[in-house]
């Protein structure tokens, strides 16, 4: 019997993975080959998708990107026995792109069948929960605090401190809300985690529930991720059927359960307070803080709001200890972060690395330079509201503090590459237009400022007014949406002033 792994994640499916799976199954039937296909998650080497792996005595041999038309030649070359072919990359685990990563959070992504509880447990799953059930609330929180984990959604707030606040707030009901509204352009790490290792998120949320005394969790999932919903729903059922969720988790008498709520296509609902409004069934508008959600959150109850990856990092911290996790990273940025290489880049995909790697190494060593083979002009780090950085900044270590100092943000780890043909005035315009489209409309600077900013860049020449507007939006916006829109604009003006001297293309 030959076991073949074909990923079932949104990116590989969009590249034809389902067709390939059907064709391989058909091939097996036609040729009377004993083939078992396992739809694993993705390893995150998106540039190789669909990545077909064949299980051999040496390990899993990778072929990709595979299309249906490649199958006859692959078969002829003996791919069912792991033999060589022009699409063959040898053993998956030996591919540099993967081998050189620090896989902590994504340790099982690609490796396992996402809905197989036994796969999950065989690969160290639910060890963290097992340990947590032996600890007090305070001890769990202490371990997370010790790990140095900071919010991976972009704000980088220390997770342990947030949990501790919720833990110490007295209330009959508390909630864990997982922010899975991954809306930044060029980001996909949350999706990969949820599609490839959903039980890891479920385990992380369960531990969070134990730590703060919450019995109910919500995953706020963006509507653009229907496959995520399907896989998460399946995983929640598996967990519930096996007492990893429900009224009596692992026989401990402790309760925790999870419900998925779908977003409705609003970027700003990724902002935590707008997300709460949306979860409550209201219009997704930002709430003023204070009160903090940790004190008054979902339905007025103390609420932990964490990004998918913050929660998914918790199982390994509780499994291996805060110290283990803390040993990765530099400065105050501890552990690993999942970078997502996108835009004009040769090897797009997910790279989980300890903090501290330079932008240059990431783009060149992992990304392999631009897809167009032209020189890199700019890199936008941290989503559409992150700064554009040029060659001068490519030596920056990827570290929260270093980036803040440079007027940039790490955000959710999205990295979008532009080659020398990019016009930075157009990119600045894109920032305002993005803000104008996605603004909830509550505060004046964001609602009117974004549209005026776009107008200024389209037709205006008043650079002073543009700077005044950026300053106004920066200092007076209600949330980070309006407040951060000036970041890409100002960086574009600062590093590429020449693009603003001529009218836009």
């Amino acid at each position: 019997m030959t076991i073949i792994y074909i990923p079932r994640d949104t990116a590989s499916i969009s590249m034809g993975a389902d067709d390939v799976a059907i064709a391989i199954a058909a091939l097996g039937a036609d040729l009377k080959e004993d083939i078992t296909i396992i739809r694993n998650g993705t390893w995150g080497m998106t540039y190789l998708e669909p990545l077909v792996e064949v299980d051999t005595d040496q390990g899993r041999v990778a072929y990709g990107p595979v299309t249906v038309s490649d199958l006859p030649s692959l078969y002829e070359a003996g791919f069912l026995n792991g033999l060589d072919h022009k699409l063959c990359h040898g053993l998956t685990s030996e591919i540099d792109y993967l081998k050189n990563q620090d896989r902590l959070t994504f340790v099982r992504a690609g490796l396992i069948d996402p809905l197989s509880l036994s796969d999950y447990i065989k690969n160290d799953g639910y060890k963290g929960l097992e340990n947590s059930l032996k600890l007090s609330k305070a001890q769990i929180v202490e371990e997370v605090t010790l790990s140095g984990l900071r919010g991976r959604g972009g704000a980088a707030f220390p997770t342990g401190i947030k949990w501790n606040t919720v833990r110490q707030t007295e209330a009959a009901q508390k909630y864990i809300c997982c922010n899975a509204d991954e809306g930044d352009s060029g980001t996909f790490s949350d999706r990969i985690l949820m599609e490839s290792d959903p039980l890891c998120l479920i385990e992380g949320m369960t531990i969070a529930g134990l730590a703060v005394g919450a019995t109910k969790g919500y995953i706020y999932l963006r509507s653009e991720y229907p496959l995520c919903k399907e896989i998460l729903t399946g995983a929640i059922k598996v967990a519930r059927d096996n007492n990893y969720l429900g009224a009596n988790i692992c026989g401990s008498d402790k309760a925790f359960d999870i419900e998925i709520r779908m977003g409705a296509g609003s970027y700003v609902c990724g902002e935590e307070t707008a997300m709460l409004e949306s979860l409550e069934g209201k219009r997704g508008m930002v709430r003023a803080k204070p009160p903090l959600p940790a004190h008054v959150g979902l339905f007025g109850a103390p609420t932990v709001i964490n990004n998918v990856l913050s929660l998914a990092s918790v199982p390994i911290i509780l499994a291996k200890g805060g110290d283990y996790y803390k040993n990765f990273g530099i400065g105050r940025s501890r552990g690993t972060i999942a970078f997502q290489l996108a835009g004009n880049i040769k090897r797009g995909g997910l790279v989980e690395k300890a903090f501290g790697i330079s932008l240059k190494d990431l783009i060149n060593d992992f990304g392999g330079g631009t897809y167009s083979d032209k020189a890199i002009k700019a890199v936008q780090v941290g989503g559409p509201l992150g700064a554009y950085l040029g060659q001068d900044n490519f030596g920056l270590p990827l570290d929260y503090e270093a980036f803040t100092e440079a007027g940039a943000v790490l955000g959710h780890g999205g990295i979008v590459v532009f080659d020398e043909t990019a016009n930075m005035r157009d990119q600045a315009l894109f920032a305002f237009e993005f803000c104008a489209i996605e603004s909830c409309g509550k505060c004046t600077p964001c609602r009117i400022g974004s549209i005026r900013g776009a107008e200024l860049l389209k037709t205006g020449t008043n650079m002073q007014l543009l700077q005044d507007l950026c300053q106004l939006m920066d200092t007076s916006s209600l949330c980070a949406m309006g407040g951060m829109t000036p970041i890409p604009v100002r960086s574009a003006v600062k590093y590429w002033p020449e693009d603003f001297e001529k009218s836009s293309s």
Partner: protein
Amino acid sequence: MTLIIEKDYGTPEKKSDVSVDLEIDGKKITVAQGTSVMRAARMIDVDIPSLCASDCLTSYGSCRLCLVEIDGARGTPASCTTPVAQDMKVTTTSERLDKIRQGIMELYISDHPDQESPLHEMAARVGMRENRYGKEGHNHLTSIIDDSNPYFSFDPSKCILCARCVRACEEVQGTFALTVDGRGFGSKISAGADQSFLASDCVSCGACVQACPTDSLFEKRIADMGKPDHSVITTCAYCGVGCGFKAELKNDQVVRMMPWKDGKANHGHSCVKGRFSWEYAIHPDRILKPMIRDKITDPWQEVSWDQAIEYSASRLKDIQGKYGRKSIGGITSSRCTNEEVFVVQKLIRAAFGNNNVDTCARVCHSPTGYGLRETLGTSAGTQTFDSVMDSDVIVVIGANPTDAHPVFASQMKRRLREGAKLIVIDPRKTGLVKSPHIKADYHLPLTPGTNVAMINAMSHVIMSEGLMDQDYIDQRCDKDAFDKWQKFICDPINSPEKVSEYTGVSADDIRGAARLYAKSAKSAIYYGLGVTEHSQGSTMVIAMANLAMATGNIGFSGVGINPLRGQNNVQGSCDMGSFPHELPGYRPVGDDRVRKIFEDDWGKKLDPEPGYRIPNMFDAAVAGDYKAMYVQGEDVAQSDPNTHHVEAALEALDCLIVQDLFLNETARFAHVFLPGTSFLEKDGTFTNAERRISRVNPVMAPMAGMDEWEITCRIARAMGTDMAYDHPSEIMDEIARLTPTFKNVSFAKLDQKGSIQWPCNDSAPEGTPIMHVDGFVRGKGNFIITEYVPTTERTTRKFPLILTTGRILSQYNVGAQTRRTKNNVWHDKDILDIHPHDAENRGIVDGDMVLIKSRMGETVLEAKVSENMQPGVVYTTFHMPESGTNIVTTENSDWATSCPEYKVTAVDVRLTNHKSDWQENFDEFSSSTRHIAE
């Protein structure tokens, strides 16, 4: 006099035991914890600019004008959303803040019309000089104005999306009719699902208009008349909530009525009637000259006041001479002031020499007076309105507050949204049963007429399951009475299982509701005419009092038994001695000591025999024993049951004197018409449902040249009784002198305090918001056995349906006022609501003309098929005279007080294609009896 502009502190008041010291612009202040920086600043007159903040709304933080600097804090936090902290140092003006505010205003002005508006004033205030963006960019300057509401318009081009209107609709009014549609720059305020204001769920309460900081929502009268220049504080003359208003005038003309923030019953909120529907007061239908005629078929003759008074007095005297002292009487009005009512009952007692005085409360809340006095000792509700904010469970029985008492309903809904539980006992699915963010935990849709059985069953559950508050009962209530009642109520005949057979409500629901009521710490009952207007109205009031006493729910905030009074001064007119057996302060006329107090003061001997109640007056008139009547502001021909009988009685009178604003239905039978005054012309006091006495200040001079109290006094003098006052305050002084519960009340004190809740005497010099605090007024609480006796009005094969009546939001009572306003746009005819099953059986669809026939008479209305009804029950209102609703209602009445059983009439309903005979004749008779000679 100047225009009163109330200070807005920007964010709501916070109450806390902890106080916080801080410094704002170098000024020190101590405030309650939780207070916003903005509020703290405005308390010391540091007026931080803002547009989206208002102290009647929770802070929102959208306009970003109110940003401040706080020592040690990052950036520039918004002062409206930032709470104070100990030793905080706040700076509210600096170059940086100026720049932000100017930048914000520059953005606003880049999308705002160039006409005068408050937004330009704000721009000037923060020093914004130039709009560098121009107005060529994306904008809303050519948005279409929504003119659909009769009272205000909405101009989106002036809107700044602060959502104060949306939030006012949600937080203050609780209707949720408005929303923000779209997002970003495309956001817009939308009524309903992108409907016009008129087509949406908007109830036109005016909260949004009041909240709008940019005149985007704008009152049409101001557009027509310009801005007002001075204000007069007064009290609304519609329902028994008694909202405080500022009448705002320009020169001598009323421009608008603005709810008064210091009004203790409304806290700055209003409903469509009080806010907008006052224009009847200046309607051309007002009769402004006294008129007389010999026969009702004669045309009216306009005469002088002297002639009219003399004519009235001589006819009354002649009739007394011919038919005896007791052959005349009168009716006082619950729409008039306490002072006006007091002098009418004094006229009847002192000048007519009998007790033939009654009031329109006879047909609404007389059972309340009886029931609460017999059990607790006082003929009034136990609570102050604000008490509802402490309730954990709210029971609404036979009342439809969202339509009939809208401002209190808004307060109640606020509490319900905070999490209080709700039990609705009503045959219909009223507005409270399910509305945005409100859902009754129990709706018990009982068969009309089975109230007493229902409440008995709830008490049965409480007593049989041991849910009573035995300590409270032992301490506060009469033991013998309780023991007897307990034995009665525990009888299986009162069990939910038995009672469900005729209430039609499941035993489980009754048990659930009873447990909910009994188990909460604070449960309150609010009720209306659905309780009182039954043959067992008084029994039902007693049954509720039993229930409340048994569970310890009287005597503190959050509990109680609270009648929602229909008219502005029902409480007051009852307090003022309008009943035939009671002198002011509910003291029996038969009591020699009581009578002597009045006789000494008035210098007249008083009749110790109680006089006629209203239905007795009609019966006696038909029998020929009762020949003349003085009716102050009540339209008995439309409002009282069994119209045929009422009309026969009125026709039988030798002299009917009507004192009113309009030639109403009763005036068709009158011989003297005396033009009265609207509330805008009155000088006096109204007493609302929470016993709150509020001042009614004259906003304009009496249009017919005479105060109503003076008209009454003149009739008395013309009949030979010395009744004279220089000012209405002297009438109140007399009331205070003669009525113990009013002992410390005076105009001076009311003007100083704003309002006072009686009793106001030496033991409660500042009034009494909550009654029975240390024990019941009557001593020990009195449990009374309340056996359920079904009404004799039964459904049969011939009359298979039950008709029940009520009112709707935009019209008021007999409609004399509201029909003469633009409110007709919402409701211009009475409609019969019928359940789909009953409609289908009869082939009735929406808009069909249907004949409603009872044992008394028949009338024709338009039908509307509605799932708010239960099968077997139909419903209509009685706002329009031509509807003839009371042609159909019966003469059944409450056993104790004769309050008519409006709520239960067995009828048949069937399709028809023509009006009833009475309706056919109505128009002709209506105009022929209203003819005024040239």
